């Protein structure tokens, strides 16, 4: 099994090298390759994050750091400049926020720049750009949260269904108008009683008597672009016959507002991203032709999952873009504002905030572009796990950084005279939408656990049966690792991929990975399949994995930067080492908590507190001023 894996990964490695060369020499061709990507059926066995669960580093997947060809870089720069100019000069974010409306001229400007069809292939009128370039553009569009969300709802989820699962006719019919921005798309999945629970979707599509139409009935909640969308991807329950038994299954439909019967409710008054339109959309006997089913009838679940999984990676670069902008603004203030004859930047606690923001932005960037680069590789690489990790890390890091940026300005930051409070409000949505971070942590941890469990079941069963040889082997391994020969996974040294100046960090990473592998094994030994119910354990597993992936990304990126001599790469080394050592200690702490009977672990108490509070449905304690005598 292992051998097969190795062979596969070897061949993949070779393929990649060849392709990498291709990329450098013929950027254009790569773009075309990517367009054809969806046609390919062969799926690569890409499992970087999953392999970490086994304590292995599949270094061929993440080293060297993915890059784009020179021509693509030029193209990108040509594209970025006008977009940046547009956002700096034409977009009045304060007004958008105040009036809760993106002005039509701004929307038209965005359409003219082609931002409504960044990833739609050129043959359908889009820009046909890769995930990497999309991530780069997201950095700029995120400067205005409302615009970013409107664009994301349109193309990251709204039209994605047609793009990845639609047939040729559907693409021909809908994509050109969507990518020009003439039509706007929306993604209609959430319902009042259904978030992640597909079983509680109530919207129903029934086949008409002539068999040519589906009639859709029901209503969808919190639909971004819901009021202005002309084309919607709607998920509804349909009756499907499986093995002679009638069953309800989810199907995906392309619904045009022009079909009739589509009404949208009042716009929601939101905390942030106020310029984006969110509302309820109701469907009353909307006739949808049968050819508008995306994929197969009853195959909507897979479509929805693929759309959701593919849309998340760009949040890393968006957050990074936002933080970089905030660093600029606050650094200006910290350098000029004086207190006690010192500039603000001379105070340690202010310096700490800048370091925090820089490290976070750096890590997010590294993770986002590593993931985007992996997704851009040929085949249909499944990077959903990595994308989910990027989303969790960057949404939480973004929230902390934005609030720290506001803190630097103190009271000034709290006023509407400065954009910080708007950023704080806009940023708050990130941990909530596109799958809440809690749910994504479950996804991250459980996907890995499932993968590791399949590999380890046999071994664990042998151990449980009391196989002495196996047990002794385990003891020996434990002894060896505890006696100070840390895991060497070959990142540094002779065949090393990490630059020597990062050797320390790389050792820490390897040590963490080794410990993570054995932690996962012991968790599987202890909980087996019932680990699904141990959410607090899974949360730590997910957090450790996110940190490991983040460490990988910074190590890989910085190694590349040093090797090709990018400007200020010494600063990158500093950031990378800072982050790695920080993450190393956090990981160690979390993994200690995951040990059996660990005194650091407070889970039982946490659960008990929550249970008592929830039984009481209020804060339990009496008031401290109360007395009994």
């Amino acid at each position, binding site marked *: 099994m292992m051998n097969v894996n190795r062979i596969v990964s070897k061949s993949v490695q070779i393929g990649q090298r060849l392709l990498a060369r291709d990329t450098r020499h013929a950027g254009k061709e790569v773009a075309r390759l990517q367009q054809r990507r969806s046609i390919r059926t062969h799926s690569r066995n890409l499992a970087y994050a999953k392999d970490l669960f086994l304590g292995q580093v599949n270094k061929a997947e993440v080293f060297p750091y993915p890059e784009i060809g020179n021509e693509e870089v030029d193209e990108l720069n040509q594209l970025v400049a006008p977009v940046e100019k547009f956002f700096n000069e034409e977009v009045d974010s304060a007004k958008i926020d105040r009036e809760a409306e993106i002005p039509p001229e701004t929307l038209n400007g965005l359409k003219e720049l082609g931002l409504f069809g960044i990833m739609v292939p050129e043959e359908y009128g889009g820009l046909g750009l890769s995930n990497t370039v999309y991530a780069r553009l997201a950095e700029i569009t995120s400067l205005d949260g409302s615009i970013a969300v409107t664009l994301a709802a349109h193309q990251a989820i709204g039209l994605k269904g047609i793009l990845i699962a639609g047939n040729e006719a559907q693409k021909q019919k809908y994509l050109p108008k969507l990518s020009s921005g003439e039509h706007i798309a929306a993604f209609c*999945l959430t319902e009042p009683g259904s978030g992640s629970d597909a079983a509680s979707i109530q919207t129903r599509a029934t086949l008409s008597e002539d068999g040519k139409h589906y009639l859709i009935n029901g209503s969808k909640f919190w639909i971004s672009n819901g009021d202005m969308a002309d084309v919607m991807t709607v998920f509804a329950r349909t009756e499907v016959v499986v093995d002679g038994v009638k069953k309800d299954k989810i199907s995906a439909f392309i619904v045009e507002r022009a079909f009739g019967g589509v009404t949208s409710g009042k716009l929601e008054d939101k905390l942030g991203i106020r310029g984006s339109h969110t509302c309820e959309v109701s469907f009353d006997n909307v006739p949808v032709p049968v050819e508008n089913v995306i994929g197969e009838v009853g195959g909507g*679940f897979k479509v929805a*999952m693929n759309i959701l999984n593919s849309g998340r990676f760009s949040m890393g670069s968006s957050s990074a873009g936002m933080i970089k902008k905030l660093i600029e603004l606050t650094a200006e203030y910290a350098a000029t504002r004086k207190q006690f004859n010192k500039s603000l930047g001379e105070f340690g606690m202010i310096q700490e905030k800048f370091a925090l923001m820089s490290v976070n932005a750096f890590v997010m960037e590294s993770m986002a572009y590593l993931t985007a680069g992996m997704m851009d590789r040929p085949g249909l690489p499944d990077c959903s796990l990595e994308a989910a990790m990027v989303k969790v890390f960057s949404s939480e890091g973004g929230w902390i950084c934005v609030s720290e940026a506001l803190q630097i300005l103190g009271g000034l930051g709290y006023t509407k005279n400065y954009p910080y409070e708007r950023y704080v409000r806009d940023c708050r949505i990130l941990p909530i939408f596109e799958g809440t971070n809690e749910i994504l942590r*479950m996804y991250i941890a459980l996907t890995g*656990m499932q993968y590791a469990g*399949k590999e380890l079941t046999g071994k664990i069963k042998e151990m449980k049966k009391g196989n002495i040889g196996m047990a002794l082997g385990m003891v020996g391994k434990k002894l060896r690792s505890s006696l100070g020969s840390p895991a060497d996974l070959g990142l540094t040294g002779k065949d090393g991929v990490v630059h020597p100046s990062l050797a320390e960090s790389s050792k820490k990473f390897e040590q963490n990975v080794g410990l993570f592998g054995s932690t996962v094994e012991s968790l599987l030994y202890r909980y*087996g399949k*019932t680990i699904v119910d141990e959410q607090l354990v899974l949360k730590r597993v997910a957090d450790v994995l996110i940190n490991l992936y983040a460490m990988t990304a910074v190590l890989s990126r910085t190694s590349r930067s040093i090797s090709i001599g990018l400007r200020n790469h010494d600063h990158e080394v500093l950031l990378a080492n800072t982050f790695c050592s920080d993450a190393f200690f956090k990981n160690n702490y979390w993994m200690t908590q995951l040990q059996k009977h660990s005194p650091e672990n407070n889970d039982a108490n946490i659960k008990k507190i929550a249970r008592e509070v929830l039984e009481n449905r209020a804060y339990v304690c009496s008031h401290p001023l109360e007395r009994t005598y």
Partner: protein
Amino acid sequence: MKCARCLLQLQCLRLVGQSARSAAQRGALLQSASSSQPNALLSTPHQALRGFHGSPAHAKGRPVPAEFIDDDDDEKKRDKSLVAHDDLFERVAKEVKTKATFNKVVDVFIKRDVRRRGHVEFIYAALKKMPEFGVERDLVVYNRLLDVFPKEVFVPRNYIQQMFNHYPRQQECGVQVLEQMENYGIMPNVETKVLLVQIFGEKGHPTRKYQRIMYWFPKFKHVNPFPVPQQLPEDPVDLARFSLTRIANDRDAKVTVHQLPCTDVTESGEQITQPHIVGIQSPSQVELLAKHNPSRPVFVEGPFPLWLRKKCVHYYVLRADPTPPDEKVEEPFDPERCLDYPLQLELDLDRDLGDEESFDVEDLDEGPVFAMCMTGRGDQAVLNQWISGLQENNPILGQVPTLFRLEAGPRELQGAADTESAHYHHHHGPEPETQKEERQPQEEEVTVEEEPRTSQRMKR
């Protein structure tokens, strides 16, 4: 230090409070005792002052006018007999026994003799009479009773006195007062402490008793997570509402008043009293009932007693037998249920025994309870009304056969014949006669089997 300050503060407070209170109370007393005005004015400041200088020596210095105490000839005579103090209460409160009259008696006793002769007997008698006067839960009254003890006389003056039981009868009596307070759940206050210290000293038995009470009482005061209020609601509907929420212990459960108690007069002049019907049902019970297999009957059972302090109320339940194991359907796992993460892992690994935290509990499926109700009259017709009321939210009840298994309620004890007739059938839907007859013996069997279970429940 703190205690001393407290003492002083309290005395001041008492001074003010008492002078005001006693002015009123004694005013009333004095009027009834037909004493002269100047005396009344004289006695009030004297009472107030006593708080500060409680020594008998001081009290001796101020003789109380004789006519004030010996206002009644009868009293004097009876004073000599053993039952004197009981009688004092009876005589003073001939018509009404209230707090005011009780206080009056205490006042009469206090003013009769400077030396408070017979105070121990008086206090015992007073303790016995307290429930009659309805003051057994009144802290102020207890403090007044303690006030009857002369101050400083019983305080031990040296360690030998302290070692032995100094003035044992008095101390015992003091303990008895506190014991009665304890039995009625009355928590003493600082005033009590001040009195006890004045009377028996810091180390006296009653003071120690006080300390023990103050150690335990605050700890026990809120120990019951389901407190029953001291005053239960008078209205039967409110009482039913309170009792039902108490049994259900589910915050989502909804109380429905199916019928308010009312009295109608028919054309023939007969009075028909409609009893109240109050039911409770939670959303999860509605859900359970909706899933109930309509071919299996549901039962209305009762009455079961529920004690609320000294009151006993009765309730009825709508329940079903547990689903037999072969009818239980487990919901099949749907892998396409969660859009974001796998709800189950496809692993062939169970939890390790060392991490098994659940106890081995033998589960006994008792069958679901779908709803509960309380009513003023637990006969079948009334309960039937309840069931029809429930049908609004539980349409399935229209199809399910409903059996009434009512036991002789508290009101039906006398008529044994009624009890038997109470066990019979009721169907909401029309059902052929033959089927009904078939069910009859079976149902009776069930009733017999049910007996131990219901009795068990009643014990709880």
